[in-house]
């Protein structure tokens, strides 16, 4: 009786082991897949500076990394957040819930901040390239977020300080009325004042939806400021520069585009845009490495050259994939915060930004440049638009890590 019972228990245990074995085996067979979501503006004012171009650059990163050769299965999906934080947060939540490991791009600061919070909550990875707010690696930083390409501090620092040095000592700001615009204005004002300049005034324009900037431009002109700082982006900036040209505002004041992308210059034409001073971290015709990258991605983006936000998606994705390969897919999928910690420990190096690194606050640091838009006669080929005025080394280009009041830095 006792033996029979022992046998029974033994056979039950054996059956249990036997029945669990095929399952673990099956799980090991079904290879976990890395899913990357490109979330940006596909239909609104930022579709040209991010949009499908960012998707193309992300896919280029997969190709250059050789994910399939390394036995890592990667899938890229994309979505349109319509520049609305609630839409962006809802898509991010759904993607993360349904197995997306990393979201990249996300222009529009308000949306980026919302997505960053969702990434933290779900412990996934968020690599922002398209948004400008320096709060993302400042007081609202979190261990799941990495910010590449640019931020308002870097733009304000590069453009603001340089313009004051060139004699533009009085400023007036035309500011898009949302987080990004305000952050940009705040940061630029600080540099202008630090460099000995003066801010005469500013005006907020409703965002999105403003197309007629004439009254704001005339108000700026009436202030007598030598420099009109445009704290906006995308079609807003294009409209401002065009209308400033049409109203002759450019005769009395210089326009400083605080966030101008190469697609904006392309839309404006060199005739209108010439002489504009702007800053950025990537220009396709900057050096042999950036040219090589641009040639590789060209078939995916017919007729256009990648802008810095799009190229930033390449750099971010490539670094993420390198980290995933180093950690192993299963481990990388388990915790977003740990993956980001590993990314911070590994040096960055890619054709877009060159060598760089990610700081403790999530800020990716690499050199920045001050560009001037070429005159029409200087341009030798399509998209040959910029002269490099100055290079700002990586350690000076971004806000010093202890000034951002990011809680991660003190921890």
């Amino acid at each position, binding site marked *: 009786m006792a033996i029979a019972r022992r046998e029974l228990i033994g056979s039950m245990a054996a059956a249990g082991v036997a029945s669990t074995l095929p399952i673990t085996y099956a799980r090991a067979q079904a290879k976990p897949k890395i899913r990357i979501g490109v979330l940006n503006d*596909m*239909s609104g004012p930022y579709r040209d500076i991010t949009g499908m171009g960012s998707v193309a650059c992300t896919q280029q990163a997969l190709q250059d990394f050789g994910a399939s050769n390394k036995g890592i299965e990667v899938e890229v999906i*994309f*979505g*349109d957040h*319509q520049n*609305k*934080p*609630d*839409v962006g*947060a*809802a*898509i991010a*939540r*759904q993607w993360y*819930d*349904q197995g997306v490991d990393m979201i990249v791009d996300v222009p529009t*600061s*308000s949306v980026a*901040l*919302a997505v960053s*919070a*969702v990434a933290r909550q779900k412990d996934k990875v968020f690599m922002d390239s398209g948004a400008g707010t320096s709060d993302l690696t400042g007081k609202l930083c979190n261990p799941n977020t990495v910010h590449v390409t640019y931020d308002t501090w870097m733009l304000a620092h590069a453009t603001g300080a340089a313009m004051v040095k060139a004699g533009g000592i009085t400023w007036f700001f035309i500011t898009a*009325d*949302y*987080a990004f615009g305000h952050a940009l204005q705040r940061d630029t004002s600080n540099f202008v004042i630090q460099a000995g300049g003066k801010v005469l005034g500013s005006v907020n324009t*409703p*965002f999105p939806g403003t197309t007629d900037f004439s009254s704001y431009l005339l108000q700026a002109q009436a202030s007598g400021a030598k420099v009109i700082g445009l704290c906006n982006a995308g079609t807003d900036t294009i409209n401002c520069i065009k209308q400033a040209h049409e109203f002759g505002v450019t005769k009395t004041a210089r326009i400083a585009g605080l966030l101008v992308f190469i697609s904006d210059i392309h839309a404006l034409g060199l005739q209108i845009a010439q002489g504009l001073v702007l800053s950025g971290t990537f220009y396709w015709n900057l050096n042999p490495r950036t040219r090589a990258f641009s040639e590789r991605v060209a078939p995916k983006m017919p007729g256009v050259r990648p802008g810095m936000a799009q190229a930033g998606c390449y750099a971010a994705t490539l670094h993420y994939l390198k980290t995933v390969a180093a950690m192993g897919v299963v481990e990388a999928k388990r915790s977003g915060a740990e993956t980001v910690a590993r990314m911070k420990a590994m040096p960055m190096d890619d054709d877009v930004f060159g060598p760089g690194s990610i700081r403790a606050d999530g800020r990716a640091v690499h050199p920045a440049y001050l560009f001037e838009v070429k005159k029409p006669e200087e341009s030798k080929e399509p998209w040959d638009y910029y002269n490099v005025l100055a290079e700002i080394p990586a350690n000076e280009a971004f806000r010093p890590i202890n000034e951002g009041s990011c809680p991660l830095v003190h921890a």
Partner: protein
Amino acid sequence: MTMEATTQVGIGLPSAKPVLFGYTSTQAIALAILVALVVLSPTVLYPVFLMKVLCFAMFASAFNLLIGYVGLLSFGHAAFFGMGSYVTAWTAKYWGLSAEVAILLGGLTGAALGAVFGWLAIRRSGIYFAMITLALAQMVYFFCVEAPFTGGEDGIQQVPRAKLFGVISLAPDMSIYWLVAGLFLFFFLFVHRVVHSPFGQVLKAIRENTARATSLGYRPDDYKLIAFILSTFISGIAGGTKALVFGIATLTDVHWSMSGEVVLMTLLGGLGTIFGPVMGALIVTAMENYLAQFGAWVTVTQGAVFVICVLTFRRGVIGELGAKLKLAL
């Protein structure tokens, strides 16, 4: 045209005997199916999406109470929905209130705003009523753009999913789903109860013939105002619930396009039908959700659907179905 449609729906439906809680036997069966769907669907579909549908279903039901049963087309309901959303988000985030209190405050904000707007707007009817509500709602929108507490374009972000009664955690999607489902069913039944109460009968009388209702001794303005406040209260609740679900309250919720969306939901589902707004909310939210990757095409599709609805099935999905089956749904 809208008024006509309303009248058509109201007349010519067989008035079956209510068996349960003011429901006819077919409506009771439909209700049972609805409850079953609400309970079972989260096992199949993404719960956050379903919660969005339920919030909008609440909102559309509240709107339907006005247009379907009082004949008042408000084009400013986003104001009540959005302000409810902001107040719930604010109180949950900064005052640390529990979920039910925050949502209730959202509803009360909607009702308070509704009392003021309604008091002004019900003096006029038809297109004038719609325009007054739209104008007042636009004022609310610009207030929200400028007021510091709304966070402007950022909205109120990182709203915690406050604990229910201060003890039950709503952080897992399924826990908050039951709260949203409970609220939805409660207010769904509530709207139905209001419509089928003596009060509701007077509302319908006012809709059909205001002069006659007046001559019978009713004061139409009082009845209209009460209906308006009830509707705005539920709108505020719906907005507040949505804010807790998504952890964010933004300008989208107060924008006039939200007012347009709720009109679309109600029309598409079936004006003056009890199940119509729920169906409409499901269709519109599903379109937005599953067409999101096509960007601008969402609005184009919505427009096309609206045109098709107006041209071919003016009584809405549920309205047409009810007419085919000769049932009041």
